[in-house]
């Protein structure tokens, strides 16, 4: 696929939380880009920093969290320098965020229709007169049956899958160019998940969206992604086009994640990763994965590895693949381990 000029470029983003003992980074020196029509999947486990990355792009990180460093270039503007007023115009209208749990993202005391109409009117996309019909059209666009009836339903009257569709309809109301979906199908049953993923893919093709999909499920990654960024303990440890990643995962963490998925001969032991994700603020001084890594050697615990560039959009942070040493960006403050 020919690379277009990226719609979103994130450069050296570091976001963290100010606690009593200092600054605890949750996202460390993260860089990536997404172009129109392109799907970038960010995979990681809890605590990897994937959701904080999404919130940073929307500038929705609330104190004690703060963006410490980096640039977020969207459509030529650095989102970290625009005013809050300009940011409000961008949020929802140009960048939409779809959350994991549609029930918490929708307001329970207003109908689905009210909420879509409000979005349309706030962003000047419709008038009081035209909004109701537009809301119905949007529900139809996300394949909700009988949209003229559903528009009068409250969120609790819809099933989980329909709620997520309604939320997607709402986020597409202003025809955004970038959609950030944070675990959009994690709370759903597998058959409903399949429908929602299909819907996202279909809408992306029709509208030429840039899609930033955050997930922990490598199955979802394989189905949706053009490119993949694997996050671990706040850093992107591997980035690659989707086929290359699955054919030849280079980081031991990526290999461990793939080995952890049940598959292969039934009843055989899974190649699990030992140990657990280190808590924020208690990252080891070297590569954060080193304590769990079956392939660690001398340099790993000493300093975090820098990126080894393989070309073709592939990069990996691991001493197995190169000597690069990354300068410490934000030294993790010593915080008592719980």
């Amino acid at each position, binding site marked *: 696929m020919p690379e277009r000029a990226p719609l979103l470029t994130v450069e050296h983003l570091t976001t963290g939380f100010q606690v009593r003992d200092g600054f605890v980074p949750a996202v460390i020196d993260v860089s990536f880009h997404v172009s129109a029509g392109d799907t970038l999947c960010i995979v990681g*486990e*809890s605590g990897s920093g994937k959701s904080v990355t999404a919130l940073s792009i929307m500038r929705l990180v609330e104190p004690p969290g703060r963006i410490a460093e980096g640039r977020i270039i969207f459509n030529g503007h650095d989102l970290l320098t625009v005013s809050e007023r300009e940011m409000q115009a961008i949020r929802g209208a140009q960048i939409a965020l779809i959350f994991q749990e549609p029930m918490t993202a929708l307001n329970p005391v207003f109908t689905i229709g009210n909420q879509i109409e409000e979005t349309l009117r706030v962003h000047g996309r419709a008038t009081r007169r035209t909004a109701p019909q537009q809301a119905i059209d949007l529900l139809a666009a996300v394949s909700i049956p009988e949209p003229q009836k559903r528009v009068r339903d409250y969120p609790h009257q819809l099933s*989980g899958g329909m709620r997520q569709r309604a939320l997607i309809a709402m986020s597409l109301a202003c025809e955004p160019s970038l959609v950030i979906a944070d675990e959009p199908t994690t709370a759903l*049953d*597998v*058959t*409903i*998940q*399949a*429908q929602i*993923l*299909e819907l996202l893919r279909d809408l992306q093709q029709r509208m030429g969206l840039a899609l930033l999909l955050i997930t*922990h*499920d*490598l*199955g*979802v*990654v*394989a*189905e949706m*992604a053009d490119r993949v960024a694997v996050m671990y303990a706040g850093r992107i440890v591997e980035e690659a086009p*989707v*086929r290359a990643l*699955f*054919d030849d995962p280079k980081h031991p963490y990526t290999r*461990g*994640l*793939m*080995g*952890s*998925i*049940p*598959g*292969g001969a*039934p*009843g*055989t*032991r*899974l*190649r*699990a*990763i*030992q140990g*657990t*994700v280190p808590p924020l603020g208690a990252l080891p001084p070297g590569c954060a994965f080193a304590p769990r890594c079956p392939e660690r050697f001398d340099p790993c615990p000493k300093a975090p590895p820098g990126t080894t560039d393989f070309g073709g959009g592939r990069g990996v942070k691991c001493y197995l693949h190169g000597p690069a040493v990354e300068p410490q960006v934000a030294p993790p403050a010593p915080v008592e381990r*719980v």
Partner: protein
Amino acid sequence: MTPLLEVRNLVKEFTRSQGLFSAPSVVRAVDVVSFSIAEGETFGLVGESGSGKTTTGRCILRLIEPTAGEVRFKGEDVLAFSRARMRAARRDMQIVFQDPYSSLNPRMRAGDIVEEPLIIHRTGRKVERRARVAELFELVGLDPTQLARYPHQFSGGQRQRIGLARALALNPSLVIADEPVSALDVSVQAQVINLLMDLQERLKLTYLFIAHDLRLVRHICDRVAVMYLGKIVETGPTESLFAAPAHPYTRALLSAIPIPDPAVPRQRIVLDPASFDRTAPLREVSSGHHAAV
């Protein structure tokens, strides 16, 4: 050989009051479900939310009382047991819950949580119980020096190990595992699955494994039953069921699993609820493999 657990025509109805003047509505969460599990077997009960799989598991332990049907454990009719007899029977049938965050008492120390069933069932003297708890900690891969810690001081995977140690304290023969890993991170899930398989081999456990993750069920279960809206629509040996699913719902469910390989082309089968008869009885489609078609 009599199966370890036999469930026959199990029904659980929930009634919901519709207000003062209208008749209450009745929902059949479990609608005439039958299956049996042999000793040492891992039997998977799969389905999506609302399929009745969790309710079935709880009815077996009588954590909720079934409306009708029969549950036989080691040949005995569990539903006829008195309260005292039931309490004694529960030593032998234990449950591990899905959520390691809400299923452990946050105000009890980990060691006490594991010891509690031993106290309730008046097993051993204090010293013996403490020794048993330490042994259980080692069995599930926890550090016995952490007995005095509270649940919040453990990670999700470790908490699930505590729940497992507690379930195993009384040497049960049947363990009902209700979504035991679905709240855990992928890499931690794999550790707990490995542990469950190891324990089964060492302790000759029988598992009723309730799950929605078909990849996982395929990996660890000998036989599987697929539930849809309260009924078992298909059941059989795992291999045969996954290789040749006969029921439209099973086919749709299998085709919906995202395959972690971008080179595999997707072929989604969408379920058309009108395409099958919901009242069709199970019939044998191949050896030991039944489907309601």
